[in-house]
């Protein structure tokens, strides 16, 4: 009877011999909106097949950092990004990087479910279609089906693929958006407060989905809810006033954080 040798179901991060490989890395990332600096020298690794949660009070820069990871900040006129962000070791702000390809590799799910006002099928098929990922209709059908399955939505919508995506419930819409992102086979999925517009049950379903997606994708999630970060992530990064305060195992952050600012924030003692 040797029960200590038995492996636990949860891989214990921080105790395992080798941490997962680093998929993306922010090195001294700074962001300015006009003259206002929003991020100060953020150094943050994003590990492969890991859910990394970015938490912190409003305006702390967590969403800004997230949007740097697939250059969505490019669409904001006066936004300047400094430092270096790498994807598989390659600087994504390098002029040789094609932003269309980058956004296909680093997909994004937004705060408010934003399906296209088209059919469920078209929503999922759009990405593969513009990137030419399917050679024929059968392949496209296959991509749509597997994407919806990965998003845990297939059984709910398989009989009404031609109905409008906007006719689904909020939680289903958000999972449709996740399916849409998944359909392009990204390596990293960024999620910007994906559950803030959803009710608790829909939230739970999306969070469970995130937990499963981690096996195939690297996920970065911004959340206002510390509980959500605790539930879904393996690594947690705490931002405050544009600085990265602490980045560590989620278990560690939520039971014994190193930084007093992190502790105050997660305990609800922020002044």
């Amino acid at each position: 009877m040797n029960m200590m040798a038995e492996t636990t179901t949860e891989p214990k991060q921080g105790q395992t011999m080798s941490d997962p490989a680093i998929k993306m890395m922010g090195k001294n990332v700074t962001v300015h909106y006009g003259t206002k600096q929003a991020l100060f020298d953020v150094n943050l690794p994003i590990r492969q097949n890991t859910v990394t949660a970015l938490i912190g009070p409003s305006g702390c820069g967590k969403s800004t950092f997230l949007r740097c990871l697939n250059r969505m900040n490019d669409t904001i006129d006066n936004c300047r990004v400094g430092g270096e962000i790498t994807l598989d070791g390659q600087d994504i702000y390098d002029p040789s990087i094609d932003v269309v390809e980058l956004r296909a590799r680093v997909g994004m799910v937004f705060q408010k479910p934003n399906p296209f006002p088209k059919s469920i099928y078209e929503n999922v098929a759009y990405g593969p279609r513009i990137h030419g990922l399917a050679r024929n209709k059968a392949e496209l059908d296959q991509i749509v089906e597997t994407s919806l399955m990965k998003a845990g939505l297939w059984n709910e919508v398989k009989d009404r693929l031609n109905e409008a995506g906007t006719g689904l419930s909020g939680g289903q819409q958000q999972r449709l958006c996740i399916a849409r992102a998944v359909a392009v086979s990204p390596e990293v999925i960024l999620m910007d407060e994906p559950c803030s517009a959803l009710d608790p049950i829909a939230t739970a379903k999306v969070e469970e989905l995130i937990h499963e997606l981690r096996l195939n994708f690297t996920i970065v999630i911004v959340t206002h809810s510390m509980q959500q970060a605790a539930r879904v992530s393996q690594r947690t990064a705490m931002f405050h006033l544009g600085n990265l305060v602490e980045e560590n195992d989620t278990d560690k952050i939520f039971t014994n954080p190193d930084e007093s600012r992190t502790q105050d924030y997660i305990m609800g003692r922020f002044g």
Partner: protein
Amino acid sequence: MSAAISQVQTVDWHSPAIEARRKSRYAAEARLKAYGLIAIVFALGFLAILIGSLIYSGHKAFVQTVASVEIDLSAAGVDKAKIADANWKGIVKQALLDLGDAKSLPKREQKKYLDIFTDSAAYLVRDAVIADPSRLEGKSTFVIPLSDPFDQLAKGEVSRQTPEAQRRVSDKDIAAFDALVAKGVIAKPFNWGLLFNADSRFPELAGLAGAISGSFWSIVVCFAISFPVGIAAAIYLEEFAPKNRWTDLIEININNLAAVPSVVFGLLGLAVFLGWFGLPRSAPLVGGLVLALMTLPTLIIVTRVSLKAVPGSIREAALGIGASKHEAIFHHILPLAMPTVMTGTIISLARALGETAPLLLIGMNAFMTSAAHGIFDASTALPTQIYIWSDSPERGFVARTSAAILVLLAFLVLMNGIAIFLRQRFERRW
């Protein structure tokens, strides 16, 4: 201090002061409602008066007094190969004289009698026969409109109580007309000529075909130019242009252009299109170009507003899965903005349809007796036609002016209806 905070203020919600205050607040609300209602009644009242007066004065132009005359063309000896060269004047004159048993009258009396019918009776008969040569065989009936004074008489516009010296028809004429009525050859059918005839100096023959075709071609040109240009400009300004001093300047100028009086665009068209480019005067092409210039600023503004109204989340969604900017615009944003853009376009075109001043300046008030068949044919437009008719001295044009306005209004209502339909049909999609 804590005592002050914890002190609970008790309010007597039924004290006279508070009740009076509440009452006055309700009264203010009731007054506001009443003002609004009065304003609506006022506006609707004027609209009703306008439409009512137009219908009152114009409804008679929708019918035309005509005489049916039977002519035996087989006896007239018309050469089938040269129908147009036959002596139609003589044939018709004889037929009309037979109709009123006026053959025995002296020449002067005969001429007066023939004035009952339109001057162009001979041409009408000729054209009808050319259109259907089988009518040369045996007897057939032709419908000849009465001339304006008798048309007015038939419609009761000319009162028989007026002293003879003060009216255009003498007692004798009335007697001749009454004789025709008694014979049962006079009728008042719907005036299709109003829509299908071109302009004429004779009110009984004048119609709007030329004006409608001119307006149609102008609007086609206007749409073909302003729609693509307007959308392209709006997309560039909204989606691609950097926000700097130059784009600000362009924006301000577009807004100003939308407020420029339309006559100025007419002058511009006169100077540029007719003067420099030497385009044909009075042509719908030039009219359309001028109207396009006029609608363009409005169209750009409408398109920009509707592009802006598309939720940013759709744009982000498209960009987020790696769509390029043009894919995001053409696959998602523009289709969503389209219903609004279409509505705006149709309303701008409706405004262009009713525009008079710039068309007058480029000569689209030509007197044309045939409909325009393309954008290079000189023609009039509906509003300019109304302007011309309202200036004409013949009594018959008074009613026709009102009738033309009603036709124009009908077209505007139709276009706005299409706009509303498009909005209802497509706009509730997200």
